[in-house]
């Protein structure tokens, strides 16, 4: 029996192929072993040439972008976003969500399936994929649910969903409580072929917890979610994956114990990848002392020791990629007491700037490592990381690495503004994003100066 044959994984609104020259920027792509000042020629949406500065010839009619002092990276891939379609368009939709992704420098995102209704049938999957063709400025891949109605009981028609274009499977938002059900899904992967992405949490241990169980929860009187709620499930699921020789992807690691479980599993030969979010890498439960629901998410912000373990895991490769878990919510879902508030924060528009400011500039993380981790997110789902090399589709992000800006100062591209970094001054701003050969984003002031340069 052959594996189900997938349809094209990523979908985007058709548009004009980019024709441009970016002159004199520092071009960095660790996978291509490239870190040099270059002129990049993009022709017909493909990278045509990487030339010595000043040596490139612009194709006729191409836009010329001055890149001196700027940084060009392969654009980022986010394996974990919530675009809220179908059913919760008051929070976000494909148009606003992909616009936010483009503004953050992403050339692809993978949308989760905990929608209303959830994406648990080929019919629902087909409808969102079709909308992506009209609304998505950045290519979107969709996962489908592992279980019907995300109820944790019966498997979805995974083979059909895979053929209909699901890039993988996830009940994200909820754990798969039953080891038996997960085991069946892992066995069935031999037919369906899609990776299973897991939200790891033991509901019995989490109980009605709303934040990390620790010193801060003790003082606030808020019910805590212990770190072992996550790590024990990771241990269970890695054991199952090893036994069934299956491939799993662990979503949003938050705790030291979790990083250690994944490291152990990788050493034991489990085919497992995992992700961590910018907020878990830069914030701790101390932020929750304010009782501001803007810091409520699942998994919760944990201790400084947990945060340090995540950074170490990101550095040594135990953590394969950065995922924003971009989770837009309407204002009225956050303007309530902490215990009642919806869980989640937006992330796409500032993920790079947050990690650049908090980890790269202080010297905690190499820029090269950050670029690798921010571009790897599609790989677990069979989507190769973008590369900057001649002949490759143009997936580029142009960044002013020294530009300071305040999160939210110009509003957001996302429909939601539940950012846990609102008001923070960050260093490093995305100026332009080219996704799958199309210009997906230009920062407004930047576009004006670029036009002036063309005119001049």
């Amino acid at each position, binding site marked *: 029996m052959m594996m189900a044959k997938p349809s094209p994984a990523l979908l985007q609104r058709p548009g004009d192929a980019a024709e441009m020259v970016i002159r004199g920027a520092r071009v960095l792509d660790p996978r291509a072993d490239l870190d040099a000042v270059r002129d990049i020629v993009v022709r017909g949406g493909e990278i045509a040439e990487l030339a010595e500065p000043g040596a490139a010839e612009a194709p006729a009619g191409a836009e010329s972008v001055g890149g001196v002092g700027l940084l060009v990276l392969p654009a980022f891939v986010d394996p974990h976003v919530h675009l809220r379609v179908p059913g919760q368009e008051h929070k976000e939709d494909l148009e606003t969500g992909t616009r936010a992704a483009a503004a953050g420098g992403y050339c692809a995102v993978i949308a989760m399936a905990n929608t209303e209704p959830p994406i648990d049938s080929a019919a629902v999957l087909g409808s969102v994929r079709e909308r992506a063709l009209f609304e998505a400025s950045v290519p979107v891949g969709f996962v489908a649910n592992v279980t019907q109605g995300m109820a944790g009981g019966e498997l979805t028609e995974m083979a059909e969903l895979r053929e209909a274009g699901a890039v993988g499977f996830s009940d994200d938002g909820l754990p798969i409580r039953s080891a038996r059900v997960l085991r069946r899904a892992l066995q069935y992967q031999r037919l369906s072929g899609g990776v299973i992405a897991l939200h790891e949490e033991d509901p019995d241990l989490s109980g009605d917890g709303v934040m990390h*169980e*620790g*010193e*801060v*929860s*003790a*003082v*606030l*009187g*808020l019910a*805590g979610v*212990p770190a072992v709620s996550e790590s024990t499930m990771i241990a269970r699921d890695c054991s199952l994956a090893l036994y069934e020789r299956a491939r799993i992807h662990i979503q949003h690691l938050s705790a030291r114990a979790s990083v250690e479980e994944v490291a152990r599993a990788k050493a034991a030969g489990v085919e497992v990848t995992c992700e961590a979010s910018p907020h878990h890498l830069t914030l701790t439960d101390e932020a929750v002392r304010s*009782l501001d629901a803007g810091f409520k998410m699942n998994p919760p912000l944990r201790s400084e020791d947990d945060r340090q373990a995540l950074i170490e895991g990101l550095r040594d490769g135990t953590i394969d990629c950065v995922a924003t878990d971009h989770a837009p919510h309407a204002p*009225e879902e956050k*303007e*309530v*007491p*902490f*215990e*009642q508030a919806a869980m989640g924060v937006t992330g796409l528009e500032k993920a790079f700037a947050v990690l650049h400011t908090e980890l790269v500039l202080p010297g905690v993380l190499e820029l090269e490592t950050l670029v690798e981790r921010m571009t790897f997110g599609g790989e677990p789902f069979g989507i190769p990381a973008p590369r900057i090399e001649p002949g490759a589709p143009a997936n580029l992000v142009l960044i002013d690495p020294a530009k300071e800006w305040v999160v939210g100062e110009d509003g957001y591209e996302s429909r939601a503004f539940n950012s846990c970094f609102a008001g923070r001054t960050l260093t490093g701003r995305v100026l332009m994003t080219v996704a799958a050969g199309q210009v997906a984003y230009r920062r407004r002031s930047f576009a004006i100066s670029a036009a002036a340069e063309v005119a001049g």
Partner: protein
Amino acid sequence: MRHLLAVEDLSREQAERILERAESFAEVGRRDIKKVPTLRGRTIISLFYESSTRTSSSFELAAKRLSADLVSIKAVGSAVDKGESLKDTTSTLSAYDPAAIVIRAPQAGAAKLVAGWTDASVINAGDGKHEHPSQALLDVYTLRGRLGSLEGTRIWIVGDVSHSRVARSCLLAFKLMGAEVTLCGPPTLIPRGIADATGVAVRYDLDELAEADVVYALRMQRERMSESFVPSLREYAARYQIDERRLGPRQLLMHPGPVNRGVELAPEVIDSPQSLITAQVESGLVVRMAILYELLAGSDRARPDRGPAPAETPPRIGQPA
């Protein structure tokens, strides 16, 4: 002081001022006419999303003794029942231009949120399992009335600390006033990390209870049994009940009420001479009068002057500047 949201925000000086004010109100309570005109013409709204007997009644009586106009809202039967959000309820009530809103809600941080949405002074009468600052102040007041000072006093707080806002506020207030605090209860009901977070001692049995000057027992809620925090009331009582045998003659006993007789306290200690439980209720009234006074009429609380609207109109588009 504008709001009373948490003991954590209080300085010792602020606490002392409220306690001294309460002493002066104790005198008012001994008069035939127990009313002063301090807050005449001011509106106080009491908004209770949880049932309460002593806190709501003592705040309401305190407001009346200060001659304020009182509106008392219980969640049952109000717009809250119809799903109105806390923010909308706050806006609605703020339209009456209240001087203060006294709020109890089942969620941590509710009072703080309300404070951000209204011009009124906000008093936290209990927010989830977080804090209950007026309770802590009245307990300090009660103890000072008996001991003079809390400096160096050893206080044991015994029982279900995890689910108790009283325990959280009291341990902070007792420490603020110089007492040494020990938390004692079943390991399942002492929150992980509380010792490191607050610098108090933690014990899981009553073996050393004799060292305490004050024993503060917490209410043990029956639903904790079904959540397997403790195996049975019988085992809980055997291990943690304060009874004649455990309570020494020189130790003082406190409890925030309502008491589960025969569970956390044996009946004989409730009515013993060491018990301050009735004194706590009496203190509640004068301390809450003092809190209202401090926030609404205190020396450093200048009420923002809201006279008639300013005469000048904003410039219109096209109008020369």
